[in-house]
């Protein structure tokens, strides 16, 4: 009955304790913290790009053309003589936004869909998952081409289109997780308390299924960034002179022999992001797995 305990309880009441705890545990994981710090740095840089970029992202210097890294252009220039560092900075804005927002869309749809299907089971599950099968099988390109025609081109649409594609796998993973959790006694205990299915899914099932979802999410973000480049080719993505890491990499791949720096630096940016995401994802998974925190 000490006042300490009461204070502790008062603290416990604030916010969802699982996430607060996860944050505490995450702070102890050095790799995850580095990942988080670097990603945050990327985001901050992306936000500040218009002020810190050394050059204008569209100003060309055709006479200069593609030049290797130099004192003026730290990472070199592209065939239009544009500063590559500036391109990467601006590309990061698009890529990070696409990566995070589209993945968030996919996460939202996929987790909800998979959780409902997995929890409901039976006919509802069958119908919902058959719908996923159908969407898997539809010709993706025709779908994207139609999107461009019906909605015109804008970034928001791009996010939705990518999210609409990527959620399918997410839903499958989630459903599998929920199905196995569904058999556990603590779910029965929650039912016997009289919890509604929605609350039960939200409070008891989803937090326990997050591990694989987080890992898959960290893998999805970079692949979404590359998918964005592909959609740009179909006319849905960003339009020049705007650019993204995915586009820079695909341009760079074409000229990897002549101008290797055009591939290496954007590739590094993406790889670095990937690694940081991965460290953060693994860290987050471990942090959310309260059991693993014993040792």
């Amino acid at each position: 009955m000490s006042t300490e305990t009461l204070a502790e309880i008062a603290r416990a009441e604030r916010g969802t304790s699982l996430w607060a705890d996860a944050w505490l545990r995450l702070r102890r994981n050095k790799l995850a913290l580095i990942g988080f710090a670097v990603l945050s740095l990327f985001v901050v840089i992306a936000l500040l790009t218009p002020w810190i970029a050394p050059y204008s992202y569209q100003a060309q210097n055709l006479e200069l053309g593609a030049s290797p890294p130099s004192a003026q252009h730290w990472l070199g220039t592209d065939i239009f003589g544009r500063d590559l560092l500036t391109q990467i900075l601006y590309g990061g804005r698009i890529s990070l936004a696409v990566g995070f927002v589209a993945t968030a869309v996919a996460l939202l749809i996929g987790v909800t869909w998979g959780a409902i299907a997995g929890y409901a089971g039976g006919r509802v599950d069958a119908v919902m998952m058959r719908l996923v099968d159908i969407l898997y099988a539809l010709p993706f390109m025709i779908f994207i081409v139609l999107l461009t025609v019906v909605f015109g081109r804008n970034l928001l649409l791009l996010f939705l289109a990518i999210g609409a594609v990527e959620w399918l796998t997410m839903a499958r993973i989630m459903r599998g997780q929920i199905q196995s959790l569904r058999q556990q006694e603590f779910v029965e205990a929650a039912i016997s308390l009289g919890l509604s299915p929605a609350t039960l899914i939200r409070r008891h099932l989803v937090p326990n299924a997050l591990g694989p979802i987080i890992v898959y999410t960290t893998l999805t973000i970079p692949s979404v960034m590359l998918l964005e480049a592909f959609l740009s080719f179909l006319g849905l993505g960003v339009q020049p002179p705007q650019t993204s890491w995915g586009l820079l990499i695909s341009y760079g791949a074409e000229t990897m022999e002549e101008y290797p720096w055009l591939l290496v630096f954007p590739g590094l940016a993406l790889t670095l992001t990937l690694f940081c995401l991965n460290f953060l994802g693994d860290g987050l998974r471990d942090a959310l797995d309260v059991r693993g925190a014993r040792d």
Partner: protein
Amino acid sequence: MPSALFSALPAVAIALLLSACGTGESNVVSGNRDGILHYGNGSEPQGLDPHVVTGIPENHIVRALFEGLAVKNPYTLEPEPGVARSWDISDDGRVITFHINPRARWSNGDAMSAHDYVWSWQRLLSPAMGAEYNYMLFPVKNARAFASGDITDFAEVGVKALDDLTLQVTLTERTPYFLQLMDHYSTFAVHRPTVEKFGGATNRFTRWTRVENMVSNGAFRLKEWLLNRRIVVEKSATYWDRDRVRLNGVVYYPTENVVSEERMFRVGQLHYTQSVPLDKIPVYRQMPDSPYVQAPYLGTYYFLLNTTRPPLDDVRVRRALSLAVDRDKLNDTVLMGTVVSAYSITPPDTLGYYPPKLFGHDAQRARELLAQAGYPGGAGWPGLELTYNTSEDHRKIAVALQQMWQDTLDIEVSLANQEWKVYLDSVTQMHFQVARRGWIGDYVDPNNFLDLFLTGGGNNNTGFADPRYDELILEQAPRAATRRERFAIFHAAETRLMQQMPIIPIYTYTSKHLIHPSVRGMPSNLMDSLNLKYVWLDRQWQADGGGG
């Protein structure tokens, strides 16, 4: 046994790798020895029926398998005898009589006759056939009426077999380029018994072009056709001029990806590439004994301007945009000096025709024009969208132009790339403001370029409508008595066109190939036209390093 499977995997993987060792003799080496040309053909042909197909890769193969009445000399592009040994042209230029070479044979040994042509041309023009290139024969009297179903009796069409070896063609009016058309695959003859045996004259779904069925009349015959892998032709034993054919065969590869094609060339898998990646050109240019071959090509790269919508309904805006483009700089930098700056639609030296040059790069004048149109210094500019179909090179040009307009005129232009069919749809529906376009001539004549911009023409796509222009092209030019007179009329028309600037010409195309130094008899020409009869491989050629 899954565990057995898993333990077998490494062994399989190692076997896979071992089988790889040593890439052996390259295609170029073996080809030079055996007289086989390895040819990068760009893509898988959609078919081999001369009356069905429409593309360039198809053209290459069909012209190896078949031969027209007259063929182009690869050096001069002038017609020379093909299936027809000779021809007579009447004084008014309207009646042409072809004399079929009595030695001309189908590959099954059947003799060729004038009737083959009458039947084949009827096939091409039959409305049910839906041949997309049927307009190639429209200069022939009543051909257009027959094709559109207005007349149904083919006897009324100006094609007659006077006897087995004499074909008489009557034209509506003098058509100086008609003989050239005889080298276009749509006017080739097909073997009637074969076509009818496998489905009938106008059936598009037959198997007559398959290796086992195909009967053709060209210097080569079809030997192997593996989808998306290769098409092999071998020297024909029945071809009338077989003694002059020095190649024993050609292997066509569907080299869709230009970068991959270049790599195949580099390791000696190809003698000839269909194109060259832009960024690789400087490297190849610097090589001694360079395999890089570049030549002017009968085509123009330009931008369509939609003259029906503001701000492009104002000719001053259109001219300002055109004048602001520094074509030479574009060519020297982004395009690596691989093209020729163009200031009009017709390529220069189209059989002696030179288009007018009314303007050049003039930033000052461009700004003045824009100011006159009401946008001084870009003020009040409503914005403009430039549409292009997805392609690395189109993107580069669009990005460069966007910046040139920004720098010179201080105006905002946004870019929109579209997937090919969407882009085609946008262009035909005129759902664009500025759109990238290219035109490759079907035959060497200014008419082929200038009739694009006739009022309401299917390829106009700009809203450009000038009755005087129409009159010059449709009425006056055909009646011109001499080539010089005719060209003068074209020049006047083209001047009108470029004054009103419904298009922004950018450059004249060039053909760009990598050709192995051992390949001989393959001259560059304006049509990028290849006559395999002239080609041979130098067995003596030895490279110090192999492939090149």
